[in-house]
């Protein structure tokens, strides 16, 4: 279906309506009242353009997720690269970073290339494998980071996500080492001794429910340490799924020093609070845990003022049987690819904390920069036509059963959220049209 597309009347970045002409893989032009003949004068390729009426729709650059669990290889019962990228496309994403905690772990060039190839075969969304920092995520010795960087997958983001690189020396070395190929270490900040057996945010809810608390300080202590380490060695640190007000403060301070520190927040931490754990339904069990309303507000403000660079889903699919259990026995994690844009709309756009240009920045431009990803994040003539069309007007009940992800563990099930992804284009080819997979 690649060819020529004329998208009429969409509002790029929420601004004034414009027409967008796509030829082949590229955006050829963006402007008022473009039409095929006008463009034909500049290009013979506009003949037979397919037209897409996009009145009232918002056009954003294709979303980029820095934090996705695609589960393949190893847990194909939860998700595959194929189903996960379908979910991503339906959520408006054109690139996702696939976390390394697969089985086998993505800690060698061979595994990251396998995941990269699976993404190319699926074809609905670019898949950028994240490499493990340490062998087997075991936190004891560095994985072959250079080999992963030099592989066909061209890995630039490294993370032991799910586990924290808690050894200070190992973290220092990792930060230093990846500078040789412009890499970044994405840290899952969780001091392990302070979170042994931790289940929910430590505070009112953990005390009432009798569940082991996951204290905010266990995240903040690691983020503070890692900011100082990154500054000391002059390297780039990215803080995964920041969840507490204290972490936002520390990152704000680190940025004020001019240090190379970036951070992400998840949609669920931007909308949901620990109170949801009160019924012991493990669909609300996630790591780091849902926090307090004050933390949610601090994350929103941090994302609004740029302290938090981007939204990353931490899409973590799990089969039903891993969630239909006692709370303590259940797996950590929530799906999020197909609801991310609607959640950001609800949590940030509706209260006036972010406009659509801001959404484009936090969900596409900045994550593409952090991921060292070219060809994504910019809605400009001459750039690859990676874009999403979003209808902000409908409000619908979230139904995980209707989603493309193989798993159903959405914490937003039954909630009414705004907006709907109408179309997604990956390098000029629609992956989603009329809210459904295009092929």
């Amino acid at each position: 279906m690649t060819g020529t597309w004329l998208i009429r009347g969409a509002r790029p970045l929420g601004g004034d309506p414009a027409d967008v002409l796509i030829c082949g893989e590229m955006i050829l032009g963006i402007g008022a009242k473009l039409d095929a003949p006008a463009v034909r004068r500049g290009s013979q390729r506009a003949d037979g353009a397919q037209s897409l009426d996009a009145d009232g729709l918002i056009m954003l650059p294709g979303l980029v997720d820095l934090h996705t669990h695609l589960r393949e290889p190893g847990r194909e019962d939860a998700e595959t690269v194929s189903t996960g990228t379908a979910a991503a496309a339906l959520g408006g994403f054109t690139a996702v970073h696939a976390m390394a905690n697969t089985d086998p772990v993505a800690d060698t060039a061979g595994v990251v290339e396998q995941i990269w190839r699976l993404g190319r075969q699926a074809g609905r969304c670019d898949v950028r494998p994240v490499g493990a920092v340490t062998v087997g995520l075991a936190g004891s010795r560095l994985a072959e980071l250079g080999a992963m960087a030099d592989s066909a997958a061209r890995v630039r983001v490294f993370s032991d996500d799910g586990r924290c690189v808690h050894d200070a020396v190992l973290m220092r070395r990792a930060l230093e080492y990846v500078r040789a190929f412009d890499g970044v270490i994405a840290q899952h900040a969780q001091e392990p001794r302070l979170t042994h057996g931790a289940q929910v945010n430590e505070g009112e809810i953990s005390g009432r429910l009798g569940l082991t608390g996951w204290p905010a300080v266990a995240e903040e202590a690691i983020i503070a340490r890692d900011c100082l380490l990154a500054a000391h060695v002059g390297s780039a640190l990215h803080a995964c799924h920041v969840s507490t007000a204290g972490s936002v403060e520390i990152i704000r301070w680190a940025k004020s020093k001019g240090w190379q520190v970036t951070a992400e927040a998840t949609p669920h931490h931007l909308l949901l609070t620990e109170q949801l754990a009160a019924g012991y339904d493990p669909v609300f069990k996630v790591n780091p845990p849902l926090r307090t309303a004050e933390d949610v507000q601090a994350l929103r403000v941090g994302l609004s003022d740029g302290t938090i660079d981007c939204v990353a889903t931490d899409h973590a699919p799990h089969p039903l049987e891993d969630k239909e259990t006692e709370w303590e026995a259940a797996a950590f994690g929530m799906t999020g690819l197909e609801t991310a844009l609607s959640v950001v709309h609800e949590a940030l756009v509706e209260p006036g904390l972010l406009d659509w240009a801001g959404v484009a920045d936090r969900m596409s431009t900045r994550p593409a920069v952090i991921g060292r990803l070219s060809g994504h994040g910019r809605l400009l003539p001459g750039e690859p036509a990676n874009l999403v069309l979003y209808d902000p007007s409908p409000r619908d009940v979230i139904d995980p059963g209707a989603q493309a992800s193989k798993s159903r563990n959405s914490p937003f099930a039954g909630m009414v959220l705004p907006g709907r992804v109408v179309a997604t284009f990956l390098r000029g080819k629609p992956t989603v049209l009329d809210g459904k997979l295009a092929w």
Partner: protein
Amino acid sequence: MNRHLISAGDLSLDDALLILDTADELAHMAERPVKKLPTLRGRTVVNLFYEDSTRTRISFEAAAKRLSADVINFSAKGSSVAKGESLKDTALTLEAMGADAVVIRHSASGAPRRLAGWVRGSVVNAGDGAHEHPTQALVDAFTMRRRLGRLDGLRVTIVGDVLHSRVARSNVLLLSTLGAEVTLVAPPTLLPVAVGGWPCSVCYDLDVALPKADVVMMLRVQQERMNAAYFPSVREYSRRYGLDAARMALLPDHGIVMHPGPMNRGVEIAAEVADSGRSTIVEQVANGVSVRMAVLYLLLGGSGAQQ
């Protein structure tokens, strides 16, 4: 009343008083030669115990049998995941067998709440992880009322590992509903960080709390806490937070000593205290049957009579 008894916090003042008054009536009946009532004839009560607890299981079993219910004891040690069958599958099995009530003891906090979502019968929480043990709190309140004649305004001091204690959680909730004034005494390491929001006061010094206490309730210190830096040594814990005869003398004359059992004699409670006339420990066990009869009767009896 709710269909289930999962948290002591779910009980209104009227609910709680109804259970205690009903338990009183049933206790009088227990003094008659024939102890059995036909109330729950033909109804099935399942004791689903994922943790060993002979005393609680026997108490529920005796309660159900005195009400003429059919009792099935289902012992499933270890976590459901480790053992293969999930809690949900066990729940569906019990449902298929027509359980009218499931009494569940589980090491995971919230397991009874999950179970209640999967069965039609009533779920009674017989202790879940570090969450709650509401029938134990009802037994304790019943015992206090029998000994001291009232609950409203009663000053109750609970001493020990509050952080991991389901008995403490249920007691704080129930006693505050009943109008008692609860004080928690423990080293700060064994109190939840957000205990300030609980309906009780907190004190780190047992000697300060005792002279004002009508009731002192000693909690068991679990062996595993001793190895996890919650306190420096068993001896230090015992010196600062244990109840020995000298400390017991600080209580007012009418003050009573309670313990939900099983006790660590010589750690949180000295033998001469446990065996003294102020101790209600054996009474608590005896009252357990009456109170659990009242709970089963009120959860199941009403609708059963109509059918």
